[in-house]
């Protein structure tokens, strides 16, 4: 039933809530979300700022833990794993693309792309070859040694995408990937993400507030005030 088309990871959230407590006061960000995403599906999560859509993405990416509810990757429950196992899962199964790129400063594009493979313990030569290949595939082959401060926003995001793809993840999570880019770069980045998804049959979840972008994905999920809107 799940994991139907391709090697992408299928996701299932059951009554997930997230409550932040700020100076003793409880601020609910997610008020019970149940959602299934098939393997290889491309889903846009849309909503206004503060709706909880980013929180939802972070929970899926195991960067954060839900306050209650359950999260499954395929049949495996992953919401309550210890930090080390979550790190290993992030490394092997998840690729992140952030709004503000999140490249490591003073570090070359090549090293940034090598990073996920390094934490996997891949030997240096193999790692470099693979990182070079990936940079070339996102059109950054001629800027391997540039650091983030020497790259434009669009270029940084391309390096970030190459890094997210480095570990051949089953799940790509993109948090407003075009939010900091001009419209022309934004179009290129979106094309790149979608073409990579098509090529590797990765599951793609993309958070945006832009309905224009959401239309390019196979399904749109609306979040409002910590709840899903419309048919699940």
């Amino acid at each position, binding site marked *: 039933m799940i994991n139907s088309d391709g090697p992408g990871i299928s996701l299932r959230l059951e009554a997930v809530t997230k409550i932040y407590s700020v100076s003793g006061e409880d601020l609910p960000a997610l008020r019970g979300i149940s959602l299934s995403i098939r393997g290889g599906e491309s889903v846009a999560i849309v909503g206004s700022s503060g709706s909880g859509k980013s929180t939802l993405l972070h929970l899926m990416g195991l960067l954060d833990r839900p306050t209650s509810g359950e999260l499954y990757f395929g049949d495996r429950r992953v919401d309550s794993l210890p930090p080390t196992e979550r790190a290993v899962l*992030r490394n092997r199964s998840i690729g992140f693309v952030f709004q503000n790129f999140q490249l490591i400063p003073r570090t070359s594009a090549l090293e940034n792309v090598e990073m996920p493979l390094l934490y996997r313990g891949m030997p240096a030569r193999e790692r470099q070859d693979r990182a070079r290949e990936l940079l070339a595939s996102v059109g950054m082959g001629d800027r391997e040694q540039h650091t983030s401060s020497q790259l434009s926003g669009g270029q940084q995001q391309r390096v970030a995408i190459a890094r997210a793809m480095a570990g051949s993840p089953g799940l790509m999570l993109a948090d407003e990937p075009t939010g900091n880019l001009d419209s022309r770069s934004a179009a290129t980045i979106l094309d790149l993400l979608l073409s990579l998804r098509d090529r590797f049959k990765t599951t793609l979840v993309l958070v945006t507030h832009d309905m224009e972008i959401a239309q390019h994905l196979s399904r749109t999920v609306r979040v409002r005030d910590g709840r899903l809107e419309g048919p699940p």
Partner: protein
Amino acid sequence: MTLVLLGIRSLLKNPYRSILTSLGILIGVLSVVVLTGIASGAKALVLQSIANLGPNLLVVIPGSVTDSGAQVGGGTDTTLTAEDARAIRSQCPDIWNASGALRTAAQVQSPHANWSTVILGAEPSYLPVRDWRLARGGFFGDQEERGMARVAVLGRIVASRLFGLSDPIGKFIQINHAPFRVIGILSSKGQSPMGMNQDDMVVVPLTTLQSQIMGVTYVGVILAAATSPDRIGAARREIDGILRLRHHIPPDGRPDFEIQAMSDIAKTAGRLSLILTVLLALIASISLIVGGVGILNIMLVSVRERTREIGIRMAIGARPRDILVQFLSEAAALSFFGAMAGGAGGVLFLAGIHLAVGWPTPIPWEGLLLTVAGATLLGILFGLYPAWRASRLDPMEALRYE
């Protein structure tokens, strides 16, 4: 291993801070190495000057004068005589040789110059007892001793002060206006452990000094050489027995003399300098600890500053352990390179002291190794807390950190 390289690489991205941070450890290690080097040099100097005196040597000095109930101090009495020295020489089976000696200060003149120095009256056996050699000429024998001959053997310094570069042997000097013929020059012996320069003196026959210069019959000291270092205890008991007998002191009475063994003094000096070395090393270690605190400080700042980087690494899949190892190897590398540089600096510093002042500054290789290893360990210990904090960061909060 890759993670360790990662740590070192991030140090290179901030070279100034890295150098300044290791400077604390560098100075700590440098001061430990230099101070222990100097202390062990001082110890070598003291032990060497004691060895110069002869390791088998026993020194007999007269007891203290009691002046209306107050003791004036050891060595002030006039109870020892040349006959005591002769008895020790001939009757103690564990004494190889002995000589009475007496000293006074006097003005000495040559035809061209004069010099104020120490006149030592000694017996012919003085030279072998002190294991001292002549540079030139000869020493006086029993005949001159018995005849109260006016002959003199000059120390190096006296010879050069009175005669410059010309040969003094056969020439005459005047001691308190009495002429003495120079028959020999002593080889250079340097400072005595009591701080006296042994090359600045004139040696004359004991009898000559007693009767013709000072007008006394006692000796100031009796030097006796034991047959071997392990017979020093037995030799001491024999001297004690003979002197008690000669001075009519019962076995339980207070003796009017004191016997000191150079080996005991050497042991005491050795113990003292060990205490000195440990003390100096301890003081220097404090600066090492200050260096370690510097590493703690900078690593804490660095973890805070790089919170977002840590968040990114975690998002990409760095396990808490990976982050820990990365930051720990940064601290280790900082302290290791600091310690190595400090050790190298210390060795250069000691060599410099040796060249500049001429002190023996043996390089304490074992201590050096220990200090470098200890300082590295210290850096790792102080790096543990910041690295642990880095590894415990929440990935989401770290990513949001500005």
